[in-house]
């Protein structure tokens, strides 16, 4: 009783709209299980707020990386091991939808989602929660020292001036690596293999993972490549994660041309034991409180248009005007072939 009362009070006080039309059949005291990938992270207080509002416990289950998690969900489709899944991105989500992993639900505040994000996938099977742009990052200090103008476009990367300067990730083992490949496919269409041939001839290096590329090969980390495939939010991350006094501004910047937009979705798992609680959790993920907690924990942008961004984001995160995207169904259909072709071009 007290929990319910407290929930009601907090509900009223919080920014979450607890309208009476919300499916209030969820039982307080029950548990809702959130299956999330390893990068899922929210502040403890924010996580606790769901229980405070609804009286429902949240149990976060690890699914490994996003791919393994979605794979597990597909294998368990219809008899899920959790109630809600968070973190299927646009390269994975279509196959999950096709496998009937999700039970359709239209989030209460779906209307608040930034239109470009909402429009990418026209389905109520899943709800976009956040997005991020994968872009080439530039070590400005290095270019300044060498007296070279940094590249300004994807095409520039094949210019001999930038020979042996770029490190990318293997698209088969790294999510940003895959996003960058998709960006080039979106940009160059059928001639993408030619672009990659030129990249190879220009000495592109392939790392196994983002961590390897960013923390070993990238020049600020002591590597030899001043251009790396990373995120539009890497510069603010540099400030936030800096040890000691953070620098006034990041030493790296973002090449805003040829960025690929990754959108992360959440959905109610079909066959859930707690459908009402699951729906509440989706609504909560889209609430302003959670949305505003997302940037500094996961270093992605909130899907909600009215979520306030932290200062470090507004100052240093690159705003990508025209991100590259490929429709989810096309990815689901062609990915295997693209990866095989990529292997071939890179001589693997």
């Amino acid at each position, binding site marked *: 009783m007290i929990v319910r009362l407290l929930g009601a009070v907090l509900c009223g006080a919080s920014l979450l709209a607890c309208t009476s039309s919300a499916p209030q059949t969820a039982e307080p005291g029950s548990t809702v299980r*959130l299956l*999330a990938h*390893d*990068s*899922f*992270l929210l502040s403890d207080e924010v996580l606790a707020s769901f229980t405070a509002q609804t009286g429902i416990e949240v*149990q*976060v*289950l*690890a*699914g*490994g*990386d996003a*791919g*393994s998690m*979605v*794979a*597990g969900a*597909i*294998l*368990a489709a219809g*008899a*899920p*091991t959790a109630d809600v899944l968070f973190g299927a991105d646009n390269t*994975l989500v279509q*196959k*999950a939808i096709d496998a009937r992993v999700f039970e359709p639900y239209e989030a209460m505040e779906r209307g608040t989602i930034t239109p470009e994000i909402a429009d990418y996938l026209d389905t109520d099977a899943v709800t976009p929660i956040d997005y991020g742009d994968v872009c080439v990052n530039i070590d400005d200090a290095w270019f300044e020292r060498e007296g070279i103008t940094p590249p300004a476009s994807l095409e520039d990367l094949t210019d001999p001036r930038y020979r042996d300067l770029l490190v990318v990730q*293997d698209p*088969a*083992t790294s999510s940003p690596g*895959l996003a960058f490949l998709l960006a080039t496919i979106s940009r160059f269409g059928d001639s993408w293999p030619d672009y990659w041939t030129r990249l190879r001839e220009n000495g592109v290096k*392939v790392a*196994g*993972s*983002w*961590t390897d590329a*960013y*923390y*070993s090969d990238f020049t600020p980390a002591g590597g030899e490549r001043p251009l790396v495939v990373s995120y539009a939010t*890497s510069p603010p*991350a*540099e400030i936030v*994660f800096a*040890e000691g006094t953070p620098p006034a501004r990041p030493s790296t910047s973002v090449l805003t041309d040829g960025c690929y937009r990754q959108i992360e979705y959440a959905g109610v798992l079909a066959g859930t*034991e707690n459908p009402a609680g699951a729906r509440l959790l989706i609504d909560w993920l889209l609430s302003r409180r959670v949305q505003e907690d997302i940037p500094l*924990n996961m*270093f992605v942008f909130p899907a909600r248009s009215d979520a306030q961004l932290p200062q470090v984001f507004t100052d240093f995160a690159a705003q990508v005007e025209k991100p590259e995207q490929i429709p989810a169904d096309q990815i689901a259909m062609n*990915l*295997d072939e693209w*990866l095989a072709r990529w292997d071939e071009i890179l001589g*693997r």
Partner: protein
Amino acid sequence: MVGAVGRDPRTLTVPVALRYAWLVPAGFITAFLLIPIAVLIGVVADAATLTGLGDIGLWRVAGLAATQALTSVLLTLVIGIPITGLLYRCDFQGRRGLLALATVPFVLPTVVVALALRTLLGDVVPQGLGLVLIAHVYVNLAVVIRIVGARWSRVDPRTVAVARTLGASPLTAWRTVTVPALRSSIGAAAAVVFVFSFTSLGIIAVAGDGTVRTLESVIVRRTSVLLDFPGAAAAAFLQVLVVTLVLVVTVRTRSPRTVGRTWNPRPAARPRTRIGIHASAIVVGVMLIAPLATMALASVRVDGAWTITWWPELLNGRIGVGSPQGALIRSIGIAVATGILASLIGGLAAASALAHRAGRTVAGIGLLPLGVSAATLGVGTLLAFGRDPVDLRATGLLIPIAHALVAVPLVIAVAVPALTETSNQRGLVAATLGARPLRAWWTCYGPVLRVVMIAAGGLAAAVSLGEFGAASVLARADSPTVPVLIERLLGRPGDASFGVAACLSVVLMAVTLVLVGLIDRLGRQRGVPL
């Protein structure tokens, strides 16, 4: 002739209870290995799986992986056998410490080992096949050292001396006397190293350059990138096939074990030899410790300066991805549960292997988890026991169960030889004094079995501490194990994440080292070969 008969375990009446003991390990393996695999196959395999088996590319990967694994085996033997000789046949200060040290890489998370080697050798050996081979040798040295060493310590040094007096040079004596005596153990070690290298994943990911592949890495790529399950099933099927084949051949060709005492090495008599031995020991020690030291160094360095900022984080846990302290406590809890479970199951399997034909079959099947990828096992377990109608997740037993499965082959490998080499004369004496069969059996094998189970349980616990594949699938997000937490930290930006990951790795190393040292000591004190 009394002696010869007395050695035969079958002359001691097998207690009824033991005749059916094989049912327990058989049930465990069926429930937690065969059922999850069957469920997984039921979900993913379809006509496309069969088509997938006809894929030339898949067979090419299998061929390349086999070549890679054979090379790993060869290198591990060439480097491992001389080290085994040094550790088991020469006496010098710090010999036992070195032996424990050599075991640590085997039980550490492969990702940590590969990362350490890459940090250490990155400038000399670029990522790729070379570094993968080095990592495989480093990790698998313990397999060769332990398996071959156990046999080597039973080769009577006087037999070699006799060969020498008959005119054999040291090398000839080694080739014509020692090697033939070690042959079956070298074969067994080679098979295990082959299986580990053939199914390698973490090392391929971290030390490879994307061009080095195993069927295991194909499985992961097909499941978690392409979401191509029938294709993944085809790769998994092929992998299990190859591994089973290798294990069957090894078990078949295993020659009968010789019973004999263990010969402790004596200090070398000649000063020149002594100097040589110490120099080799130092070289081996440096070789073994350098990668581990790299990690230890990383835990106290940032940007080329000394720091102790990461260590307090282990207790404070402000790192976001999960509390290190909690993960340590959890991992130790899981390790203890795994140790108990694995030693019970493995001990029963070994005991029944002694008592019953079915038991010997079960002990053979118990080796099978070696070839089933931990990640596959994890997903299968989740599908079979992670949801209704049988949801064991809340019990917290899923990870210990999966870890026990991974560790049971090792327990069997330790326990079966120790038991078969125990003379049953004490049991016969007890029987003539009127002891009932179970009592007589226990009088005979109990003391050895107890030590073996404690030691094997310790080994299983060490394996559990470092296991990543299954835990990553089965752990709850808010309650990661230490290796899962390390992996998460390594995937996150920031010096802090890396520093704390290094600290956790050091703690894992230390705990493992102590555990292995204690096991060795126990075996030595009780005179049981481990």
